[in-house]
């Protein structure tokens, strides 16, 4: 441990909640868009993708944090990427062993977790400067926030595009599905809609503060 610690080492509730709410990776930072939009055609896919990312995020942040004082500054990004790629390979084989149908549904996007900006971003911005326990707590929050974001998108798209939620039919057989929502354009529209909702709520609450 170096003597001049730039950051506070204490773990607060905020360390965890930062990723879940205030800095939510999907809705606030708009990071890691590729898996977010590509796999959220159904709620089940969305949650599995979220959990896979959560696992990679937590384990790589833990490892990065452990070796943070050993890695020379010049090669840190390369080191982080190799660590992340190792864990992604692990997840890839685990999913393949547990559920082949899920593996086929997610396809190459499991391996594409490597290039998810959230993981590299967290490793660089947080785990490389903080002790292991704090890094894990923060990564856990980020991962849960990411999973919640994916679930919100996946559920919306599945309800609108197929009339189902987690595979259960919601509206009976006369429901006319809004097919475009499970096609690529729907992903952009639904995420745009969610962002719009959040900016609307934010402007409402700011106005409320101004009036008082």
């Amino acid at each position: 441990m170096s003597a001049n610690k730039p950051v506070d080492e204490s773990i607060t509730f905020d360390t965890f909640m930062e990723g879940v709410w205030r800095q939510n990776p999907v809705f606030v930072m708009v990071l890691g868009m590729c898996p977010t939009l590509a796999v959220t055609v159904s709620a089940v896919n969305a949650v599995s993708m979220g959990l896979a990312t959560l696992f990679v995020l937590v384990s790589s942040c833990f490892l990065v944090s452990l070796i943070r004082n050993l890695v020379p500054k010049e090669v840190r990004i390369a080191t982080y990427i190799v660590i992340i790629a190792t864990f992604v390979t692990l997840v890839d084989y685990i999913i393949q062993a547990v559920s082949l149908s899920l593996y086929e549904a997610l396809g190459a996007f499991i391996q594409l977790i490597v290039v998810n900006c959230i993981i590299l971003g967290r490793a660089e911005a947080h785990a490389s400067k903080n002790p292991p326990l704090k890094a894990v707590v923060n990564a856990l929050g980020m991962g849960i926030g990411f999973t919640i974001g994916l679930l919100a998108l996946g559920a919306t798209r599945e309800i609108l595009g197929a009339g189902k939620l987690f595979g259960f039919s919601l509206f009976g057989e006369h429901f006319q599905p809004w097919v475009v929502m499970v096609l690529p354009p729907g992903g952009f529209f639904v995420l745009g809609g969610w962002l719009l909702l959040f900016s609307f709520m934010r402007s409402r609450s700011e106005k409320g503060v101004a009036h008082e």
Partner: protein
Amino acid sequence: MNESLSQIFIATLLTNNFVLAMFLGLCPFLGVSGRLGTALPMGIATTFVMLVASLCAYGLNLLLSAFHLDFLRLISYIVVIASSVQLVEMVMKKYSPALFRALGIYLPLITTNCAVLGVALFQTARDYNFSQSLAFSLGGGAGFTLALVLMASLRERLQLANVPTLVQGTALSLILAGLLSLTFMGFAGLGGGE
């Protein structure tokens, strides 16, 4: 397996556009597409990295399968991509420092561009041979550039429009991308590949 080269090229360029149909490479798509002047060079740089990555990935895949080291595939691909990005960065810094500064952080971020790794992974998954991989990466790169340039032109126009403050920012870009993606769905069936 039996797709012709032109089919692969047209499919990746239009019908299965990397950005608009497969959601690969969205970070630079939303980040750099503000101005036409940076969108085009960014697209070309990415295409070059894609080409190099695809060729290296093809060779690496042969090597790894020969020695039954499939589990190392992901790690070796990412290392190859990172090195070729470094190369592009060095070349650009020497010959066009202004452009180098304009692209800024997005240049090293090509490493984490899903589209580049996507090319390498998809060509492996689909068992493309050497010339098919070449057509696939060229089509993918051209498609990425096309999407980036279209989006940048639209956003330049949009800056003159009177947009409600609530919608401005990422939400607007996403809805715009959705409309663009709807348009590209009109290309479905082109090239006889479907």
